[in-house]
């Protein structure tokens, strides 16, 4: 359903989006993005870097967050800004959850600023793969 600017309130949660990250996904992302860093393709390289195996690209996780924001925005063309800080690594087989909350509304620009995050559950704790993310989205109004 299309979200209209008038329907938004500060504190509203964005619909969350989850996915399990697989080796196939990460390989497909290397192809589509052109980021062929072996840290995301070769377990031996990842172990030398101190990880237990390959990790997802930060931009893979941000791509998932971008899909969450674009769904909320209704159209990716409504997204005027998107930013993210990368924190915890994401390993293969883990489930990531993208979410956010409306922080401020600008009635004149019909724009909302949302704070964003991507979390992963690990060893019984919530880790932030992305934190302090932010999006600015322009929404249509009921008036059109």
């Amino acid at each position, binding site marked *: 359903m299309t979200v209209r600017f008038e329907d938004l309130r500060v504190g509203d949660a964005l619909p969350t989006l989850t996915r399990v990250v697989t080796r196939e996904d990460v390989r497909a992302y290397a192809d589509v993005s052109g980021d062929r860093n072996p840290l995301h393709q070769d377990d031996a390289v990842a172990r030398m870097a101190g990880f237990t195996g390959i990790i997802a690209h930060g931009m893979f996780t941000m791509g998932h967050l971008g899909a969450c924001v674009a769904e909320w*925005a209704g159209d990716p063309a409504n997204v005027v800004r998107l930013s993210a800080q990368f924190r915890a690594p994401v390993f293969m087989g883990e489930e990531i959850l993208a979410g956010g909350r409306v922080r401020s509304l600008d009635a004149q620009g019909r724009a909302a600023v949302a704070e964003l995050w991507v979390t992963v559950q690990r060893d019984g704790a919530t880790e932030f793969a992305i934190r302090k993310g932010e999006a600015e989205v322009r929404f249509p109004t009921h008036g059109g």
Partner: protein
Amino acid sequence: MRRVNQEAEGKTYEPVAFEISEERVHAFLDLFGGPPGVPPTFLTAAEFTVFPFVIGDPELALDFRKVVHGSQEYVFRRPPRLGETLMVHPRIASIRQRGGNGFMVVEMRMDDGDGHVVAIARSTMIERDMPR
């Protein structure tokens, strides 16, 4: 210890053309889902046409084994369009040292065929003092 060279701040690189191909956008949407159109982080593909050359620039003296992607930002002046070709203008926006780590911001301005700015991508790369 080797450190990123702060004197490279402000350095620019040759612009590179990047086509927003329909096929590649569809591959991106197949992977992540989301409504039709150019996804908000699709221009990562444009950045990666030049990123390896920037990161590998010997003048920067980056120790690539210690580099992690710290943060990323996209600002859109207008929505990128399917099928259009953007000119990607890379620049080292800033280089700072903080707490033993080096922080380098690579900024890529992406212009359309009329020379109007469509998007600006900023990647903060962190050269860690110690491997994790």
